[in-house]
């Protein structure tokens, strides 16, 4: 299959977000900001990924897998730029937009495995699972997630603390929040409350994101 152009990928992505995740029926050409006779659109029509009727573009069944994977790559890229590289705000978004187009030919799978098969992007939108995620789940991999990803009442073992701020990590460590400790998440809102041993702690989401938990193998 020929590589889609970057702009064509962007169109697919927007279509997915608006029609599959949102409740729009088709998309106005104007809201996609494309001309009806633009190169990228024609490219997608040729591949039968989309269909243009009147002033609206519709995502066809044939186009769904590709659109889904495009969204997946975008959100994985966001995880990479924002969580790992620590670039936040508009800068992070821009970088993610550039990165996503490089995540092809298995690079997305590798990145996904490196990030431990995340299920949501930093903005909280779902990341469509790839084959690697499904496989990992079938193998029953325990998976390491941030404390923010646990549900209230769920417990696990602290796998590691992401050391973005030395002082804060030291504080957590000296309070006994250390890798290897068992934690029980008591509450998520308005602050995260968890139990280690017989003690309870409250942290805000900045700190909670830095505590990574190994879920017990089911």
């Amino acid at each position, binding site marked *: 299959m020929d590589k889609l152009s970057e702009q064509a990928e962007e169109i697919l992505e927007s279509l997915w977000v608006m029609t599959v995740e949102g409740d729009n029926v088709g998309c106005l050409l104007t809201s996609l900001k494309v001309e009806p006779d633009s190169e990228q659109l024609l490219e997608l029509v040729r591949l039968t990924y989309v269909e243009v009727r009147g002033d609206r573009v519709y995502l066809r069944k044939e186009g769904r897998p590709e659109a889904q994977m495009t969204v997946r790559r975008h959100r994985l890229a966001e995880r990479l730029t924002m969580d790992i590289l620590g670039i936040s705000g508009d800068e992070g978004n821009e970088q993610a937009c550039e990165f996503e187009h490089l995540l092809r030919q298995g690079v997305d799978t590798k990145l996904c495995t490196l990030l431990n098969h995340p299920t949501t992007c930093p903005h909280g939108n779902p990341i469509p699972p790839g084959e690697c995620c499904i496989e990992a789940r079938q193998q029953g991999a325990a998976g390491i997630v941030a404390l923010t990803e646990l549900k209230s009442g769920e417990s696990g073992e602290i796998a590691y603390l992401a050391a973005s701020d030395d002082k804060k990590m030291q504080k957590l460590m000296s309070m006994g929040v250390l890798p290897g400790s068992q934690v029980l998440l008591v509450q998520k809102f308005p602050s995260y*409350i968890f139990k280690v041993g017989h003690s309870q702690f*409250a942290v805000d989401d900045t700190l909670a994101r830095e505590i990574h938990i190994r879920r017990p193998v089911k």
Partner: protein
Amino acid sequence: MAPQTSHPKVVLVGNPNVGKSVVFNALTGAYTTVSNYPGTSVEVSRGFCTIDDKRYEILDTPGMYSMMPITEEERVARSILLNEDPHAVIHVIDARNIDRMLPMTLQLIEAGLPVVLVVNIIDEAKRLGMELDLKLLQENLGIPVIGAVMKRRVGLDELRQAIADYSMVPYAPFVYATDLEYDIDQIIRNIHGDYRLSRRATALLLLQKDTDVVDLVAKQETKDNYEQLQETIREISFRRRADLHLQISLERRKVCTKMLSGVVTQAVEEGEVFTEKLSRWMMNPLTGAPILILVVYLGLYKFVGSFGAGTLVDFLEGTLFEQYINPPVVDFFHRNLSAEWLFELVAGEYGLWTLGIRYAVALVLPIVGTFFLVFSLLEDTGYFPRLALLVDRLFKQIGLSGRAVIPIVLGFGCDTMATLVTRTLETRRERIIATMLLALAIPCSAQLGVILGLLSAQPGALAVWTVFLLLVFILIGVLAAKVLPGESPVFYMEIPPLRLPQLRNVVVKTLTRMQSYFVEILPLFLFAALVLWAGKMTGTLESVINMFSPVVKLIGLPVEATTAFVFGFFRRDFGAAGLYDLQSSGLLNPTQLTVAAVTLTLFVPCVAQFLVMLKERGFRVSLMIFIFVTLMAFSSGWFLNRFLVSTGLLM
């Protein structure tokens, strides 16, 4: 700080909330604040204790989690260990969390300090199904270990005995992983100076870039030696950049696990008890908000407002002073002080008796007293940490973390004390924002009492006052959070178990707070009375008032109100009381009353608060806050006046 004595020193250390202060009281018989809120005893308390005819000086330090200080309080605690030469260091821990707190015991032992371990709250641990073999732990650690329930004085005799019998025995160092040991050894070999802490501990703290220790070593070592040391440390820290702190912590924990093997046996835990349920309700926003409203309504509105500022003040001021005490006293002075100026000084309108003592005892004492009682009660239950986590998200909007809820709430009692407590906040930025908000928009209980009394007859005025102050608080908070440089705060806090407050603790704590309030405030009352008297006598007061009157006129108030504002600086509530007089004589319409009340509430902190600000925040910041608050108060007054007049809201 108290004068240095030659008595052997005994230093109490430990996490917040393990009953350190209870141990201190049991040993000394004196009282310091015993609190269930992490970090309210910022000052170091000193007391004495006599065992077998020998006198010991006991020092109670602020809570610390490890030998590496992070907050200012921990730094205070650690500096005592670095600078004093203790006969014994009592490490108090909570039996329930022994595995979590023992790493600090290791650090103390490792530092070569004469450690006694007190495993406190052992009764609660038993209730949780924990069995502890402390004899075995004592053998493992090689230091005296005492099981205790200090609240009921269980273990006190053993502790006193242990202090009296203490003799330092050489200990075998706990061994960490080989690679870490190798690095520690590399640093130790370059340390030659004389230190209070052991070279091993000094090496570890150096490696962890502890600034105080680095400074100390820089002073103690020769220049060449220090540079060599720096080089070694740089090399090791780079090699271990990924996980130095973590590895040290993990190694310590490994040692602890070894020490505790066979010591702790844990039976199956029982179901949730009532206090745990209540705790959950307090922390859940859906149930927590109604609980907060209930606490504010019953505690502040009903008890402090109606009972303290109403019933008690009426009784003290209206009945006791007006009818029984004042007439004979004034009469006495009339007869005995012939000179007019002397009578004015003592019993005149601004006299020491009238403005100083009577005012402090009859008006301020009941309000502040009832407030401190409620505050101490809440503090001892452990409600505040739960409130802190509830409001953290909201407080982040104004640049503060949930932690700041304590100084802010305390500010409604006394802004001066609250300014002192802002020390417990972590960053300078947070401390400045909190100090400023306290100075600007948080009325203290004395002021609140008078203003509520003033406005209660006019529900509309009261509503405008409340809404306007709230808006200013939020607006200035949000702006400060945007304008002030620095990172936004991170929130973390240990949530201690809920406790039923002990009546004696609450009462004594309230009395201690009231006492320190009076020791600090009463002289200022008297001083203020003196200044005002002198001002009146010399005519200075009049010229100051004349100077200010254009500003007052500008915000739509009668010239007579100027006096209230000048007074307001001496005591926030003086000012409000001055308005009271104006209103009684019918000089203020509702709009003017509201504008005056708002401006006065926002207007400068009282003298005492300003002095504490100077001490805590420094001259530059304090002056800036002062100027800002003054400008803000009058421009708000001007704005509100324009707004109310043009809309006719309170006509």
